[in-house]
Structure formats: structure tokens, C-alpha cells
């Protein structure tokens, strides 16, 4: 694909055979395209390995999120087509995943396409959809490679906004890698954080409609379990490239206590050293963030306890016989209530997971019939 833009437009209008040099160029381009895989093969060189080992002596993030910004600016800088910038961006992602594996970072989330990006020109959006389709098709062809590395691919977002054929390819890729558990790649596609949070609230409301949970069961923890990212822990580190210093509606709920690193390098130019710099920032912030997270968790637990107590008091008032219960009975009632709430919540989450799995398997069976 990289070579197509260099071919002058008037070549094919000439009668006669195509010159040999052009044939070579075409073949190079085609082979390059087919060699692009999701995880670049390769190991770190000596200096990189040394630095990685030094870094790993300290606390390492287990889950890193990337906002891969700067593809278009890179394309302008290099005087190439925008599409080329996006393709190079994808290459860089493959390389970065390799580095993360080398650094024992087993979960990566990337922001590939925002719902806001639909506002771009039709050509650009179609180009991005086509690129995504090719990448997912390629992914499915690399089954053995993925199984070897144990890569689990998840796609987070409102898939119903995408063209149906892309939805089917995505569903096949996700279902095929579902059982892999060595490393996880979460791709946010047709995603914004607000949509994700609103969707989580909608799912909880669905749970209430189905009689699986009560409105009083709604809590911060439950909302977190209803997000698209429910199967992942919160990111420890969020990196945004190209110098912009905003979150652009990405993982707003999940990154409230994450280390945020803004780097001015453009995404296609990202290097191993940029990644190390970000991890260093994470290590410097590790203790205060851990403290803040623990404090927040304690407050959350307290709030849940208070909520349970209020519910129990309410129940006893309505169903009791007017006589105030002694402390032990109240404690028992509280424990029973908490246990039954937790059971309700587990059943609801099971039903939600089943709903999501069915959506994907339906898509794959549609694809199989097509």
C-alpha cells in the first residue's frame, strides 16, 4: 500500500507493457501489505534490553492505554497522503505492542476511532473503515500467530454504528481470540467515553426492567462492571502523543486515578525511548496514585455499606412489626441483605455478558451464512 502513492498517474494510460521497474514496485507494495501483522516480530537490542531490565526493577504498569494522535500531521510533515499516515500509524501500533510484550505489559488499550471521527470527510472515513476491515481480515489469517502469543482481541464501542461487513469481521476476530489469555489488546472503535457510560446506565436500567436488579443496587462498582471495558482492570498509565493535552472522551471513568503522560512526539514517530520515558513518569507517580486509589476504594466501600444499611432500615420499617430489633438481629439482617444483593448483581452481570456474547456470535453466524 505504501508504494501506490508514488506511482505517477499517467503510467497506466500508456499502451504497451508495464515497465519492469514498475512491476517490482508493485510487487514490493503488495508484499509489504501482506507482511503487515498486528504484532511485529522481533526482540529488543542490547541497550534496549538493558534499559528494560532496569525499568522492570521498579513498579511496572500492567495496563497501558494509548491515544495514538498525530497520523495526519505526520502525513503533512512527510508530504504523503493522509491514508499513508494512518497506515504508518498502524505499523507503529504493531511495533509498540511488541515493546509492551518485551516490557511484560500484558494489556494495552488503544483509541482507534471515535464516534466524533464520523464527522470527517466521507473519503477519509471510508478509507479508515477499509483499513480497519483489511486489518481485521489479516488478523483472522494469522490465527496461529495469535494463538502462539495468546493474544485476546476485544473491541470496545458501539459496533452497530459501523458498516455491517466490518461488524462481522470484528465479531469473528473477537470470538476467535476469546479464550486466549496471555495478553490483551482492547481496540476502541466507534467509541466515546460518554457513550460508554450512558450505555452502562442503560444496561443497568435494562437489568431493572428485567427484574434482575433493583435501582438501589446501582453503585459505582456496578456501573464499572457494565462498561465495555468490564473485563479489564483500569489502565495504570495513559499516554497521548502529538502534544495535545486533553482526553478527547477516552476512558474518562477508568482513568480517574491513572498516570497521565502527554508526549509531543507524533504517533508514527513513537520510539522505544518515548515508551520508557512514559513508564518512568508512571514509576515516579506510583506511590501517590496508589494512595489516592486506596483512599477512593475505602470511601466507596463505606458508601456501599451506608447504602446497604439504609436499605435494610427501610425494609425492616416496612416489613417489621414495629418493634425495634436488637443490634445482633440488625447486623444479621444487614449481612443477609448484602449477600442477596451481591447474588442479584452476579446474576445480572452473567445475563449481561451472555447478551453481549450472543450479539457477537449472531454476527459471526450471519457472516458464515453470507
Amino acid at each position, binding site marked *: 500500500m505504501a508504494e501506490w502513492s508514488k506511482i505517477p498517474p499517467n503510467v497506466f494510460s500508456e499502451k504497451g507493457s508495464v515497465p519492469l521497474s514498475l512491476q517490482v514496485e508493485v510487487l514490493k507494495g503488495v508484499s509489504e501489505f501482506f507482511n503487515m501483522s498486528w504484532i511485529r516480530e522481533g526482540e529488543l537490542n542490547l541497550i534496549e534490553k538493558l534499559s528494560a*531490565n*532496569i*525499568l*522492570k*526493577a*521498579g513498579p511496572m504498569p500492567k495496563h497501558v492505554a494509548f491515544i495514538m494522535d498525530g497520523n495526519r500531521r505526520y502525513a503533512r510533515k512527510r508530504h504523503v497522503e493522509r491514508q499513508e499516515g494512518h497506515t504508518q500509524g498502524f505499523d507503529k501500533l504493531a511495533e509498540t505492542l511488541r515493546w509492551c510484550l518485551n516490557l511484560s505489559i500484558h494489556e494495552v488499550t488503544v483509541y482507534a476511532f*471515535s*464516534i*466524533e*471521527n*464520523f*464527522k470527517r470527510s466521507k473519503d477519509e472515513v471510508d478509507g479508515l473503515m477499509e483499513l480497519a476491515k483489511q486489518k481485521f481480515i489479516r488478523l483472522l489469517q494469522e490465527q496461529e500467530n495469535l494463538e502462539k502469543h495468546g493474544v485476546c482481541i476485544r473491541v470496545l464501542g458501539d459496533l452497530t454504528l459501523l458498516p455491517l461487513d466490518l461488524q462481522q469481521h470484528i465479531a469473528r476476530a473477537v470470538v476467535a481470540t476469546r479464550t486466549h489469555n496471555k495478553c490483551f489488546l482492547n481496540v476502541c472503535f466507534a467509541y466515546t*467515553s*460518554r*457513550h460508554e*457510560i*450512558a450505555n452502562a*446506565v*442503560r*444496561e*443497568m*436500567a435494562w437489568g*431493572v*426492567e428485567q427484574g434482575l436488579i*433493583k*435501582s*438501589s443496587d*446501582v*453503585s*459505582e462498582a456496578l*456501573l464499572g462492571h457494565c462498561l465495555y471495558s468490564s473485563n479489564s482492570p483500569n489502565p495504570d498509565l495513559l499516554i497521548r502523543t502529538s*502534544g*495535545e*493535552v*486533553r*482526553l*478527547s*472522551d477516552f476512558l*474518562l*471513568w477508568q482513568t*480517574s*486515578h*491513572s498516570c*497521565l*503522560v*502527554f*508526549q*509531543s512526539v507524533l504517533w508514527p514517530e513513537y520510539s522505544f*525511548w518515548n515508551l520508557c*520515558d512514559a513508564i*518512568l*513518569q508512571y514509576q*515516579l*507517580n506510583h506511590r*501517590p*496514585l496508589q494512595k*489516592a486509589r486506596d*483512599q*477512593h476504594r475505602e470511601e466507596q466501600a463505606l*458508601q456501599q455499606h451506608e447504602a446497604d444499611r439504609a436499605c435494610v432500615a427501610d425494609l425492616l420499617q416496612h416489613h417489621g412489626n414495629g418493634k425495634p430489633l436488637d443490634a445482633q438481629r440488625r447486623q444479621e439482617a444487614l449481612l443477609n441483605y448484602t449477600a442477596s444483593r451481591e447474588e442479584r448483581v452476579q446474576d445480572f452481570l452473567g445475563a449481561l455478558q451472555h447478551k453481549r456474547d450472543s450479539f457477537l456470535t449472531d454476527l459471526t453466524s450471519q457472516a458464515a451464512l453470507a
Partner: protein
Amino acid sequence: MVHVYEFMWRVLHVLLHIHRTFITLFRIRLRNWNGQLWSRALAALLVPIALSFPKQKKLVPAPGKRVGRRYRWGADGKSLEKLPDHIGLLIAEEEPRYTDIANLVVWCMAVGISYISVYDNHGVFRRNNSRLMEEILKQQQELLGLEGSKQHSVEFLSNGTDKQDHQVLSCQSVVKVLSPDDGKLRIVQAAQELCRAVEQMEKTAKDINVTVLDSLLRESKTTPDPDLVLKFGPVESTLGFLPWHIRLTEFISLPSHVDVSYEDLFSALQHYASCEQRLGK
């Protein structure tokens, strides 16, 4: 071999901590340098002139000077290409200094920012709301004088009160004190409200979308989302600051709010004015 790496890691972090202390001690403006950590370190080492920065004494200016400053601040605000409608002051430090925060709030008002939020992740400001308000009013008198205080009136919003959409006076600013409860907890409360409505068959699950949730989480119809958050302190995180509202917020970090100067604030505002938002396009 592992011990060698551990030792080298410790050396690396000691160097980084020394580097950080060096910066804090001499107040070098490194926030404009987005380059590699090592280039920053080298640059810091090559600036011995920093040694000549004496600690500046704060003098109480004469009333005439106050008026001059007030007009300068207003003019500064107008000179910027864009000014945030809503600024958030995120204090990520352990010991908050109320006077410095009050100064920041008053400067923001003088420059022409309409909505100012003050936040810390321990809820300290929320608990000491009245003390902060007193300090702000005091500093308003101090910095803007009596005339200025009349011109730049301030409205304090506490939790639960709705901002009345009465006729807005010229240069009126709204100050709100926020805590982590205004973040995720508020979203959860809105979710509970919507689920209760579904329970009582007033709504269906399908009715719930971004717009519905946004209207519940909005302070009032007129309060904008924060355009800019100034983060004070070494911790690189939002620490739970209004997760729903910060989707397009620019984050600018400043080393500390202790003894912060107007120039620090203004250069952050200049940096904000040069940011370009493409909004997905």
C-alpha cells in the same frame, strides 16, 4: 544480575528525585519543554544562572497601583485569542494554602473568566467551604480594591443550589468548590435516579442516552464544561476530577500553588489560547 538492575534502578530514581528537587528549588519554567527527560535534565544542569534568583518579597501595593493592575489584568484577558469560559483549579498537593488559591480565583475573575471551580481530591475545600469563601472575598478587596470588588462580583455556588438565571451583571463570576463526590458519585446518583424512573415505569431503558444523562449532570443549563484545568502539584492525574465533564478539557500542569504568581497563571492562559481543538474532524 537482578540485584545489579535493582541497584541501577535505584540510582536512576535517586537522580530523578534530585532533578525534581533542583527544579522546585529554582523554579525553572520547564512546563514548556516537552522534550525527552534527559534533554530536560541536561538543560537544567546547564543553567547555573538560576542560582541568582532571590526570593521576592511580597509588597502591599498602593491603591493607585491596584487600579492599574486591575485594568492590566482585564486588558490581558481581552488580549488573548481565546479565554476559557470555565476554568478548573485542581490542587493535587497535600497542604492547601487558602490565600494562594484565593489569589488565583481573584486573578481569574479579573482576567474575565466567568466560571471558576476549585477542587482537591480529599474534599478539604468542600469541608472548609466558608473559610475559602472568606479568603476569596478578602483577597478580592486586597487585589482589586473596593471599586474593583463592586465591578467584579462573585457568586458562590454550594452543592444543591441552582444558579438562578437572573440578569447577569457585568463581570460576574461564579465560583464553585468541588470534591470527588461531584465526580463518579454524582454520575452514580444520576444513574440511580434514572433506574428508579424505570422501576416506576416512568421511563424505559431505551430512553437513556448521552443527552439525558448530560442534562442530569449539568450544574445548570448555562454552566459550560471546564475548558481548561490547571493542575497544581507533582501528581500526573486528574484524581477523580469530574470525569463526565472533562472530555474536551485541556490540562496544563503547574508545579505548585504555593506562592504562585499572576505571571504563572497568565502564561498558562496564553498556552491555552494557542491550543487547537479539532473536535474529531
